[in-house]
């Protein structure tokens, strides 16, 4: 097994969750025992596999009708190579808000999933949805919560008081719902409260305009070091409109930060793990959640700190299990 060549395909090299998860797999010593992991970037649906053969293909690609032919071609060219697909993008919330023709979209997903030997969901909520919508058979579906190396987060000093500095971390995109958090924060009084926004994206100017009247809200752009935002904040807000898993919530939890999430898709997994949930996306509900957070000292956080060594091993052992089931 140790000589197996495992190729990870991606078409999204932007500094986000997907790339960091792949990096984690590539650099894992534990997973190195399962085989030699490599990554290939697929551009414009064009893909030729490296010479020397590949034993397992793991797709981290975003599925759509446009690249459907390329997916089918890949399957036809390598009929005997086991293929795994990791579904990083699609969730119920995504379909509700972004898909106009649901029947057509679900046909695409069903037929694309058929091309793979195994599909990996990144959260239990996503798995439940895939099964409920009958998009894939349960026996071909695994759940592997996305993870990264959390050692740095674990050793961060925990904020001493009740949260004063709130953070938004991620791409400034409609998906993340940062506009909701900014509007809600503006309505919270408290001169010592801060809202720090880390990340970049298409909505930057819009969000800056929204926060213009409130000097407590600051924008810090994208940080290459994922520890940097966590160091500065006491609590993380995630009002996402859809979210397959939400890696940053995982990081914040292991850093002992309070995590406040919307009850959306994969974020539900974090609620079970100790995150505070906000029942809807209304400004009133988020305002209340922020105020409540500032008034309570979260005693449980330290206990709730996920044990990174355990979790990382779990991520790795889940992957090992998934890979060995195919070989």
């Amino acid at each position: 097994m140790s000589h197996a060549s495992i190729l990870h395909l991606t078409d999204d090299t932007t500094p986000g969750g997907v790339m960091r998860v792949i990096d984690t797999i590539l650099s894992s010593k534990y997973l190195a025992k399962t085989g030699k992991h490599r990554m290939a970037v697929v551009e414009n649906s064009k893909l030729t596999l490296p010479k020397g053969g590949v034993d397992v293909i793991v797709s981290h690609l975003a599925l759509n009708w446009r690249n459907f032919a390329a997916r089918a071609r890949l399957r036809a060219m390598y009929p005997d190579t086991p293929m795994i697909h990791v579904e990083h993008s699609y969730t119920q919330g995504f379909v509700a808000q972004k898909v106009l023709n649901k029947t057509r979209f679900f046909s695409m997903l069903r037929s694309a999933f058929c091309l793979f030997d195994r599909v990996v969901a990144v959260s239990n909520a996503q798995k439940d949805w895939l099964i409920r919508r009958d998009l894939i058979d349960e026996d071909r579906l695994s759940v592997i919560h996305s993870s990264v190396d959390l050692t740095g987060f674990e050793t961060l000093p925990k904020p001493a008081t009740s949260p004063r500095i709130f953070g938004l971390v991620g791409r400034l995109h409609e998906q993340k719902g940062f506009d909701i958090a900014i509007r809600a924060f503006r309505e919270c009084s408290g001169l010592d409260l801060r809202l720090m926004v880390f990340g970049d994206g298409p909505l930057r100017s819009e969000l800056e305009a929204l926060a213009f009247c409130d000097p407590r809200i600051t924008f810090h752009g994208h940080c290459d070091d994922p520890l940097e935002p966590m160091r500065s904040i006491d609590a993380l807000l995630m009002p996402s409109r859809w979210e397959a898993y939400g890696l940053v919530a995982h990081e914040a939890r292991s850093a002992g930060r309070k995590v406040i999430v919307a009850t959306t898709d994969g974020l539900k997994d974090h609620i079970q793990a100790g995150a505070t949930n906000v029942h809807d996306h209304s400004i009133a509900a988020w305002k209340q959640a922020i105020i409540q957070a500032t008034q309570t000292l979260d005693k449980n956080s330290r206990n709730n700190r996920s044990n990174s060594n355990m979790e990382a091993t779990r991520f790795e052992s889940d992957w090992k299990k998934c890979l060995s089931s195919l070989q």
Partner: protein
Amino acid sequence: MPRASIVVPAFNASATIAETLSSLQSQTFRDFEVIVVNDGSTDHTVDIIQPFLKDSRFHIVNQPNRGLAGARNTGIAEATGYYIGFCDSDDLWVADKLARHILHLDLSPDVGLSYAGSILIDGEGQPLGLKQSPRLHAITAAEVFKRNPVGNGSVAIFRRAALMDIAYTPQKDRPRQWFFDETFRQSEDIECWLRLALTTDWEIEGIRGHLTKYRIAGGGLSANTNKQLASWNRMVEKLRPLSPIFFAKHEPAARAYQLRYLARRAVSAGDEHKAKKYAREFLKASFSPFFEEPLKTLTTLAATVCLSWTGYDPMRFAAILRRGTLNPRPQKQT
């Protein structure tokens, strides 16, 4: 476990609830339970429900008054059926309503909410000659927002999984689950349907036929149009952050339809001043209703003008005509 549960919220409904429960008892599909939620009634509603409880499929739950949404939420919590329907305590179901919706939901696993048209009846249960005949297919969130195809609160049959996808537990009411927002006293229906459309991927789809008899009692629907508009606005404020893009695109047209509806209501109530005000605002909001439903839009405007010139509500005249000609004939179902 019954296949379907029917939730009947009842508040001081002694005048009508017997007829409602009889219409449910005579459903041709028989594997169901009825959960009557007595929402703090102060009249003898409970006495009227009592004889129905001999039928083992009928149950009653008593609670202090919470309002329509709160009664429905309690009913859903008690319901054990795979499908969950709602019938208000003054409305009636046509005998094969449940059977047809269950067939529809059984055959369409992606449909989370099944609905149909309604016949409007008066206080005595006589047809008013008016029907709600909504569009049945290709129902998008925009269609729900603009035209509310589900129509009224005694129409919808949900798949349990779809209801569970919109459940939430507000902090101040733990551990109760809310499906309908109990802070609303009006617009709670449309808020629920629209939230289903905007946050889940369940299809909303209608079936042919007018399967609910929807009662317009006494002086018609409540004439307090101001309050109704306020709660509609609050619904928009609540849901807008879910998808600002959606609301930026569809709110003007939806507002125009809502104002057109309120203008019609004001005309029916003979309130010339309000009718004119709503008609003006509706024209300001969007011209979409002109293109999408020219006939109904022009009728509304004509009726408003007629009321303000002559002081006589032309809709009443139309109703008299309808009663004179249509009622003796059996209702045609389309």
